């Protein structure tokens, strides 16, 4: 067992607390905390804010394509036993179809879910991700 004092960047992957990055700050102070409008009405003052809505949409076509791209970038030589798909293709047709059916049903559900959530996507998420 090691303690919390181990240096950041080691194998353990645990940084000493208090390391807020810009992305964490955005998530925190743009999205949480008391909203002044709920308490002050008469003397409220407006100002131009440069910040954007930092929330990103997890289940979206963009996310899916990013995942697919990441898979394409996987270093094949590091895949110890080859892609399991190679084995799968040699297997019995019947079993394979069953698996496929179940997964496609799950996929359809996810697609419905995704459709409902694509709308609030904003252009700002890119810059936000880069700041991460």
């Amino acid at each position, binding site marked *: *067992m090691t*303690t*919390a004092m*181990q240096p950041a960047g080691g*194998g*353990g*992957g*645990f940084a000493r*607390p*208090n390391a*807020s990055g*810009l992305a*964490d*700050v*955005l*998530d*925190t102070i*743009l*999205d*949480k*905390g*008391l*909203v*002044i*409008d709920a308490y*002050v*009405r*008469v*003397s*409220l*003052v*407006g*100002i*131009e*804010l*440069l910040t954007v809505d*930092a*929330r990103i949409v*997890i289940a979206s*076509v963009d*996310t*899916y*394509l990013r*995942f*697919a*791209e*990441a*898979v394409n970038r*996987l270093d094949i030589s590091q*895949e110890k036993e080859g*892609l*399991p*798909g*190679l084995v*799968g293709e040699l297997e019995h047709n019947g079993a394979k179809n069953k698996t496929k059916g179940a*997964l496609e049903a799950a*996929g359809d559900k*996810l*697609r419905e879910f995704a459709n409902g959530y694509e709308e609030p996507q904003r252009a700002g998420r890119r810059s936000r*991700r880069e700041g991460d």
Partner: protein
Amino acid sequence: MAVQDTDARQSAVYVYGILPGDIELEPGAAGVGDPPGEVRVVRHGDLAALVSDVDLTRPLGRPDDLFAHEGLLDAAAAEVPVLPLRFGALVSDDDAVAEELLQAHHDEFAIALSQLEGRVEYVVRGRYDEQDILREVLGENRQAARLAKQIRGADPDATRELRIQLGEILNAEVAARREKDTRAVGDAVDGLVEASVVRPPSSELDAVYTALLVRADAADDLEETVSRLADDWAGRVDLNLIGPLAAYDFVGAPAATAAATATGG
């Protein structure tokens, strides 16, 4: 909202957060703005607000502004209870802070502050290693592996549907792991925390993103617990503990606070 429309107005008062009235502020603390305004205290009754003057002709929201806002409140929260305001809170002048904010809501704020006494927020954030998690999923999901093989080296436009199909499977598989790992963190810190809020993932590779309200005297135990978990998960999940922070996730609408508390251990 009623935003005051005064042509002559060139500056306003930026409000960071609300604290107990007996706090003392070291002079020279830098606030938001360029150049940064000096942070000062406006008091009323048992309450104090941290504020600074802001030039209304310049927009707010540069990274320095964001860090100034959070840095000030987090530093304060390490010493005293703090009700943090969301970034961008501006009122016309000190009188408005004292009367419309502090006086008008005095008891509500005082009670909220007393509930936060001796407590701070931490955020546990974990990220999957992209390559490792994708290999894990491809190793366990036959259809994903088959799709991965089909798109490898193929024309991206011609395989767009297959890519989306693969991405959907991967996203769902990662989401399932996120749910499980978030639960594991919740179980590990159960008993050490007073309340917890699972934040929405901020990246598709998020493994855990949970805010915890912790008694200051339990902070060491929390660090040790999360550190142990980080060791267990080393290589698979990059786990971090962020804090102590002002209790951003545990203030707000009364209903939200009640729901958050109910999920606590």
